[in-house]
């Protein structure tokens, strides 16, 4: 008999899987997740992995599964703001975790690529679902992963064939639409890469209105041997919503995985990244930017597990905290005993702009092999005084110098996004936040055009 946690059980009392005509694999998976969920306590400050994130307010609310009416009557215009100025891409749109084909555009994908919603895939390709669903690596599975497993309402299933290389990115757009209750939007995504393939994937989390929604997504990525996956995740939800997202990645031999995480939205957001380097010559890069203002709380937890010799990982997370916001970085590098010749680096830098903002940093190394090069660094502070002086000595006013440097601090991470239109979209957002003293949006646009 499983011991049920009462708070945990109460929290999900209004949740249910949206559709019942699912494959047996999905049903089994839901059942397992539900059992694990019931025995997991609701995250609280006393849990080491939730030490700085207070969810007691959220625990009092009852999220409600989406209903069909959420998805109706939406037009392409509604999602236009998230199209990055109509960037050339293959788009799959999900509203409250539910696939909406009328807003999507995946017809022009190559013949061998499969890009469809998870429920269709489960009917057409049950073996894959059995092989991959819930199988990506995760150290310390937690409450929100189980919650998603039990109550997800669809998701994207993408299978890239061997030797496929494309310049055109795949864009997964997850939008939320609220109503009086706290809507629960949970997508479960499976990304499976073939050998020798290369692709860019953008995941965007946005809101269609300013009502609060609880987003709880899980993306499982299985990189292929000798493949490259560029994975950009943007969290741009309204500042009343909650976001709990996990990305679990398996990186086999000679493959590269590059993740860029940009978080600007949500009242409370939690970004969980678990990457396992399972083959020699594999490479994992995690770049992150979290810019909080008002009373936003941004929690980032990353785990990179080195399971195999000769793998490399590199991690840079940057936080900019204004207003009453709180930024948390909790990163762990785990090097197993057999993972000799590992090279792993981790850096967390936070900038505090106001006297009521907080920054917490917990960069951890857990190393069981001896022939390794591992390092981590963390800094919390203000802008570089020398850089400020340099600009001021050249006639730039203090306010503008501060704007420029803050903007530049953030752009270090944004620059790692290879898609021009996405980069431009983020530059503009960040300019509006930090470049106020520097110039108008038009100034910025003309400046940017010159640069291009």
């Amino acid at each position: 008999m499983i011991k049920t946690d009462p708070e945990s059980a109460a929290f999900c009392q209004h949740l249910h899987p949206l559709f019942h005509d699912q494959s047996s694999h999905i049903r089994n998976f839901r059942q397992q997740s539900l059992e694990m969920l019931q025995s997991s306590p609701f995250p609280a400050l006393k849990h080491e992995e939730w030490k700085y994130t207070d969810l007691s307010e959220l625990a009092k609310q009852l999220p409600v599964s989406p209903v069909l009416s959420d998805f109706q009557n939406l037009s392409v215009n509604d999602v236009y703001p998230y199209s990055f100025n109509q960037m050339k891409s293959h788009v799959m749109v999900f509203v409250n975790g539910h696939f909406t084909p009328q807003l999507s555009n995946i017809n022009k994908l190559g013949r061998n690529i499969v890009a469809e919603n998870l429920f269709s895939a489960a009917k057409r390709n049950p073996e894959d679902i059995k092989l991959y669903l819930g199988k990506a690596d995760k150290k310390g599975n937690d409450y929100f992963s189980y919650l998603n497993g039990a109550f997800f309402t669809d998701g994207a299933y993408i299978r890239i064939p061997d030797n496929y290389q494309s310049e055109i990115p795949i864009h997964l757009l997850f939008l939320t639409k609220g109503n009086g209750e706290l809507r629960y939007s949970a997508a479960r995504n499976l990304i499976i890469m073939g050998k020798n393939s290369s692709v860019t994937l953008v995941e965007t989390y946005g809101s269609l209105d300013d009502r609060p929604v609880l987003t709880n997504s899980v993306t499982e990525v299985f990189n292929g041997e000798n493949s490259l996956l560029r994975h950009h995740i943007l969290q741009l939800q309204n500042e009343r919503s909650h976001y709990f997202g996990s990305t679990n990645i398996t990186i086999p031999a000679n493959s590269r995985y590059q993740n860029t995480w940009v978080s600007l939205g949500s009242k409370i957001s939690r970004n969980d990244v678990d990457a396992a380097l399972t083959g020699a010559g594999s490479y994992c890069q995690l770049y992150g930017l979290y810019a909080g203002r008002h009373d936003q709380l941004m929690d980032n937890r990353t785990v990179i597990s080195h399971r195999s010799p000769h793998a490399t990982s590199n991690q840079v997370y940057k936080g900019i905290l204004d207003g009453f916001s709180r930024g948390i970085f909790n990163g762990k590098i785990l090097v197993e005993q057999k993972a000799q010749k590992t090279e792993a680096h981790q850096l967390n830098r936070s900038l505090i702009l106001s006297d009521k903002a907080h920054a917490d940093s917990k960069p951890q190394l857990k190393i069981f092999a001896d022939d390794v090069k591992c390092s981590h660094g963390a800094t919390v502070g203000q802008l570089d005084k020398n850089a400020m002086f340099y600009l001021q000595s050249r006639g730039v006013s203090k306010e503008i110098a501060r704007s420029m440097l803050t903007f530049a601090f953030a752009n270090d991470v944004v620059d790692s996004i290879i898609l021009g239109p996405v980069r431009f979209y983020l530059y503009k957002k960040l300019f509006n936040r930090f470049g106020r003293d520097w110039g108008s949006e038009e100034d910025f646009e003309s400046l940017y055009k010159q640069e291009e």
Partner: protein
Amino acid sequence: MGKDREHIDSLTQKEYEYGFITDIEMDMAPKGLNEDIIRFISAKKDEPDSMLRWRLKAYRYWLNMKEPTWAFVTYPPIDYQNIYYYAAPKKKEGPKSLDEVDPEILATFDKLGIPLEEREALAGVAVDAVMDSVSVATTFRKKLQELGIIFLPISEAIREHPDLIKKYLGSVVPPTDNFFAALNSAVFTDGTFVYVPKGIRCPMELSTYFRINAANTGQFERTLIVADEGSYVSYLEGCTAPMRDENQLHAAVVELIALDGAEIKYSTVQNWYAGDKNGKGGIYNFVTKRGVCHNHSKISWAQVETGSAITWKYPSLILRGDNSAGEFHSVALTNNRQQADTGTKMVHLGKNTRSTIISKGISAGYSNNSYRGLVKIGPGADNAKNYSQCDSLLIGDRCGAHTFPYLEVDNPTANVEHEATTSKISEDQLFYCNQRGIGTEEAIGVIINGYAREVFKRLPMEFAVEAQKLLTVSLEGSVG
């Protein structure tokens, strides 16, 4: 590689040099812990009633506490009822000079290479030597008395200076602070009390040698150092313990108070029995050390930790006063099955407070060595600065090195930097030495000592020599 293996074997099979049991009759309380034992200890020490109440309060609180499990160490559960809480070398009319001290005890110190009389003459160090639980010899007390410096076993201080004790004991580490601190508060049997009056610079290094002696006796030391305004004191603590098969529990509490403008330097060399190469025996070292800095004051911790089966120790500082400064310099070496979870906490509360953390970990054999540290900048700590550096060196492929720093910053003017690296001894450096005719063993000694140099620099002369010897001896010939 075969030769390296031999080196590693020779290292891992090294027996504890200082292991022996001194045969002295003991004055013991029965095993176990209850209110009667605490009353017995308190009565033995002629303590005032208030002290007994203080102990009982701590004990009652302890009963409801849970042993902490968050540290990265594993050990079989401790049976707190299977420990002797009081053991004293049999008293013979309280020795007044070294001549009256039990010759066996003096011989013990001789074996350790720290003969008291030699120290007295040579180094000018006042030694308040603690053999198990009762101080057996105190020197230089007179000279210190002239300056008004109080340097006493804590049990005597409780009797002779009740006001100071009442004001400061438990003011930094309250009896309810944590599981082991509460246990210590209930049953501590001895330790040291130092009070340096206003404006006095203590002319010599104060030093206490602790030694765990009676089989199955937990050592519960209590150290309290108060440096009054504008004063300076440097305190040395060094430890060795005889070889044992059963694990011994050591739960000490150290409290430092630096009042306005004062400076305290606290140095430790810890080389207790670490258990044999299979991890059998060895000391459990669960220590709470904390200091408080008032305005313009400074406290520095320097430690070299090479012993103990398990070390659980975080010398911390609360920088309460404006413009106060804290330092932590540590070398922790683990070998065989040793486990160390050690580090520091720097809590910045005052304005313009500064702290530096330099931690060097060395793991060999099957050991696990963790750094766990907290740097907290409170909302009022304007212009606070912290710099931390935590390096780990791995020797052999079966050991682990871990770093768990916590940075919590609530002030925008603060500047906090943390850096850590983990690596093995560089092949290039070894090759370079070999090429110039320096043998591998010697080269490792040189490299390790260079690696830990920053910390050794901080130790008082006598300790620096001892510490370097300790590291070189422990790591002879171990090639990664």
